């Protein structure tokens, strides 16, 4: 029997994505050099409220830390050493240790580009403890204004009784941050820009959900490695909201075209696997290695995070769970209205929340994408990357999905990942499922 070979071809939108990423970096560099711009650490989840401040650029420790890990092992080691000798623990997330080391060294790349020091900090609240503590280092370095917010959590279905006080708490935290930035830095917050984002974000969410649904096709139009090039655009990589919308529209069109024309990510696709959390950024080569088996990774809760909260539709496709909506006809007239419409629910919508109160998502995801296997890294550092991974593996095994675990330090830290051992494991895992490398 002849084996099916699908056509493959590079993505045309790749150039646009690179341009948007370059513009983001340029804005940070210009802000670092300009007395009229502000660099901020962190954000507060949900819709990007910071867009209302003209000239404010948000620079999180991630993606800086992840980029460093993939670009230069020796430099990220140098940075982590600079951090560790000052007392930061070895069980800390590699992203932050890379980034904090750069702050101590004063530069953020091997070519000596200056580190973009932040002028205010809003630690990103998150179910991950490392995120909650993340904003402190840039305030330790210099006495910059600092704020906070919470990521409320409870178990079980939505509880209206618990919601009201917790939502109010979130709203008031962010109002305080915006008011204080206005007061301290003399910057005027443009509420209209926030209202505009509120209009655009749901439209983007429809588009990213469409892409996730298209990934269920055989052959998969993209692989996880490709998704990794795009999924941060509009989240960690801040771009103009209209550009963001235009980009995702064009991206959906191209992916739809690939599906319609059976353009594959992997020409010999015969095996599909999923992941849950980030892969080792310095060793994405294993995706190419797996192609030798005709295996494609259709993504993870992490790479499809813009779709969250996931829902398994009745027709078996992946969808987005309906959130509590702004009452019909209710106009958003003030900043407070806008924030209340962002924080309609106390708990978050991120993939990390799944491990607390949406445990079914991991198996729903496997069903929607018809996966054969799951690769679930066990990261020793970075509690948010590790919590419940074993449980998730067991749940997938119980439904017949073959699970492979491997160990490492953290996606941004190369120290403990034995790459040869990892590839050996992949070989054994695939062979144990009766698959051999294709000639």
């Amino acid at each position, binding site marked *: 029997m002849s084996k099916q070979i699908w056509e493959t071809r590079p993505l045309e939108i790749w150039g646009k994505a690179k341009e948007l990423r370059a513009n983001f970096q340029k804005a940070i560099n210009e802000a670092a050099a300009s007395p009229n711009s502000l660099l901020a650490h962190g954000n507060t989840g949900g819709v990007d409220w910071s867009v209302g401040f003209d000239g404010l650029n948000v620079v999180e420790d991630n993606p800086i830390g992840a980029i460093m890990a993939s670009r230069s092992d020796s430099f990220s080691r140098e940075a982590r050493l600079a951090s560790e000798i000052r007392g930061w*623990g070895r069980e800390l997330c590699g992203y932050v240790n890379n980034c904090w080391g750069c702050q101590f060294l004063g530069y953020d790349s091997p070519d000596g580009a200056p580190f973009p020091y932040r002028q205010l900090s809003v*630690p990103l609240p998150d179910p991950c403890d490392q995120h909650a503590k993340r904003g402190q280092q840039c305030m330790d370095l210099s006495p910059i204004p600092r704020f906070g917010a919470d990521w409320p959590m409870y178990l079980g279905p939505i509880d209206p009784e*618990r919601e009201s006080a*917790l939502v109010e708490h979130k709203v008031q935290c962010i109002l305080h941050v915006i008011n204080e930035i206005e007061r301290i830095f003399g910057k005027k917050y443009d509420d209209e820009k926030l209202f505009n984002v509120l209009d655009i974000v749901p439209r983007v969410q429809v588009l990213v959900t469409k892409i996730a649904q298209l990934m269920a096709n055989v052959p998969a139009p993209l692989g996880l490695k490709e998704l990794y090039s795009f999924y941060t655009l509009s989240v960690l990589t801040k771009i103009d909201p209209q550009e963001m919308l235009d980009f995702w529209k064009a991206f959906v069109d191209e992916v739809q075209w690939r599906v319609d024309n059976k353009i594959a990510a992997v020409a010999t696709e015969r095996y599909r696997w999923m992941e849950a959390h980030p892969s080792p950024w310095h060793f994405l080569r294993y995706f190419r290695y797996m192609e030798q088996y005709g295996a494609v990774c259709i993504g993870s809760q992490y790479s499809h995070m813009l779709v969250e909260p996931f829902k398994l539709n009745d027709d078996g496709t992946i969808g987005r769970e309906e959130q509590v909506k702004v009452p019909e006809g209710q106009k958003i007239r003030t900043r407070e209205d806008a924030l209340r419409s962002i924080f309609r629910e106390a708990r978050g919508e991120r993939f990390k929340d799944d491990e607390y109160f949406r445990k079914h998502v991991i198996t729903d995801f496997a069903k929607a994408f018809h996966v054969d296997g799951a690769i679930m890294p066990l990261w020793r550092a970075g509690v948010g990357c590790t919590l419940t991974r074993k449980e998730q593996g067991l749940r997938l095994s119980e439904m017949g999905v073959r699970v492979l675990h491997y160990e490492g330090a953290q996606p941004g830290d190369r120290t403990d990942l034995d790459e040869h051992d990892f590839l050996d494991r992949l070989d054994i895992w695939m062979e144990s499922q009766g698959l051999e490398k294709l000639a």
Partner: protein
Amino acid sequence: MKTFKEILENRHAYAKDWKARTGGKVLGFYDTYFPEEVAYAAGLLPLRLLASHCEDALTDRLMYGNCYCTRDIFNQFMLGRYDYVDGLVSIESCQWWYNAFDTTLIEFPELWSHYLFTTDYVDARTSKDAVFSELKIFVKRLEEWIGKTVTDEALDNAIDVYNKNRALLRQLYQLRRFDRTAVLGSEVMEIMLANQVMDKAEANVMLESLLPELEARAPQEDGVRLMLIGSETYDAKLEKLVESLGANIVTDELDNGTAYILNDVIPMKNRLMAIGLRYLGKPHSALKDNVWRRRPEHIYQLYEDFQADGVIIAKQIYCHPHGSDMYAVWKLLRERNIPYHTFERDTTLPYEETKLGVEALISMIKPGMTRLHGWSK
């Protein structure tokens, strides 16, 4: 009367006996941010789940990368040692605690359970309202579970009992002040740990009888005074090791040490708000001190108050909150020329290795201690 040490060593027997005597339920909790007063007012025994040191062949199936404390507590559930626990509460704190709660409920779904959110950002203007709301809901859930109302009188009584307990324990800490050190660090730690698994009214009776005895003791011989900080501890082995080297742990900054006793509930008409404010105002743990870095200064104040000569930092391996606070603590200690020794704990205390490190610290401190050479007399 049983001693605190005996109760600590036989804590499961104590809780079982308490259940038999009172007919009450036992509610296990993981973190000292849990407002025990509320559970106590409901007639429950709030039981701090403490790790032990036993072989673990079970937890790997569901856990990875956890600190040993969380693994061990789950392991003890699996081994049936906590078979008398009727319910579990997880408070918003370290994620490993949540993981222990989560995995335990996977294996023991019949346990009553509740996740109580206390703000991680403790300084927000609305933190107190969020915590108050969560406490109200917690009381409601408790009432549904136990089938009776938690009255204001019961809350007042619980507040009184717990405030008294904290005051007595603060008196105990005073017995290691510089001018008259009457007790050893290991004795204090055993009392602190036993107290956390006891009915506080019973603990108070024991403390009231014990404190005058301790106060009447002849003071200890002057020696190297050390402060212990870091992750939580579940026994007094380190304190005993330090004592075997002629030094004494005279204070600590531990969740189950001073952080457990330093502030009281200030009575208010709104009892739950009063309780909530106590927990929002307590000396914060490495995790909850996530904005203003108040913890290092607090450590320094305790160090000064108890006139310590040096610091031991004992951190659990894989304890990320302390891993992300160490920098600030080291910085402060270095800036103020305070000698310190840091080491990591795991399931057991590596005796010889730890001894060597502590010995080196003591040897470093001793030559500069003029009072020990008689120069200040």
